[in-house]
């Protein structure tokens, strides 16, 4: 029997990362403050999770400006979308199989 846990992606094993990926799946781009408000987490905590996801190629960072104010937005990469979808499917499979 296939190990049911093997398809879960350990990169998404955190509520903050789940929140980031969820938001990026349904919005083309989300900025830092929106993510912070959505997940209700500190600046530093959010930044470190973002960095980890970015280093793994799951999200892309766009640093820009609105006038003079800095505005950083994030989007999911194709690899990130694919990995997250697989993770969701694995979760569903796990729930179904242990019924």
């Amino acid at each position: 029997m296939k190990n049911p846990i093997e398809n879960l992606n350990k990169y998404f094993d955190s509520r903050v990362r789940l929140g980031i990926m969820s938001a990026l799946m349904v919005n083309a781009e989300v900025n830092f403050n929106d993510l912070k408000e959505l997940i209700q987490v500190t600046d530093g905590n959010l930044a470190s999770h973002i960095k980890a996801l970015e280093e793994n190629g799951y999200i892309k960072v766009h640093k820009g400006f609105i006038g003079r104010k800095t505005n950083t937005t994030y989007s999911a990469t194709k690899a990130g979308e694919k990995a997250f979808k697989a993770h969701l499917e694995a979760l569903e499979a796990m729930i179904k199989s242990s019924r």
Partner: protein
Amino acid sequence: MNDQNHHLDTLQDIKQMMERSSRFISLSGLSGIAAGSCALVGAWFAYGVIEPNRGAANNLRYITAPGSPDISIGDWMGNQLVQIAAITFVAAFILSFIFTYLRSKKTNTPIWGTTAKRLMINVMIPMVAGGIYLLKLMENQAYGLIAPGSLIFYGLAVLNASKYTLHETKYLGYSEILLGIISLWFIGYGIYFWAIGFGVFHIVYGTIMWWRYERNPSHEGE
């Protein structure tokens, strides 16, 4: 067994975060009830202006010269009705805003965030187009078409907005569009259709939404 619950919770969390990030979820059912009530009050006043004058306009025509062209009811009372409509609209908007603002505190969402802006823009586009259309209708004295037109445009605006807020809103949109189309066969009875479309429908819809989302706060998003 516990693992299963954990995964279910995770999926539930994910679904909720997707909703919260793309839709404005703080829309309150109480806003609908308040807006509907304002509309009914406004319709009451408008009825008070229209009915006595329906007879008076007809009498006036008879007196001036039988066979002369109808004095349009619109010409007679246009100004008062527009005032009533404007006051009703402003009152409904303010009350709706207050209830939604209060709810946004509970859902922990900023009242003027990305989702709210997106919702506003998508509501405003059909409403502004409709508003210009209705103003021109008034200018061209096609008063009978104003009620159907306003219901249809409003329904389209709500339908568009439903993608950016609570999804049940789309049923309100469908109802308004349908009512507007039906009212095209009953020109002259606009005030009744207005009372139903902007009054009754909002109260019904608002109550359903309140019942589903706000009656028992622990069941948020059920």
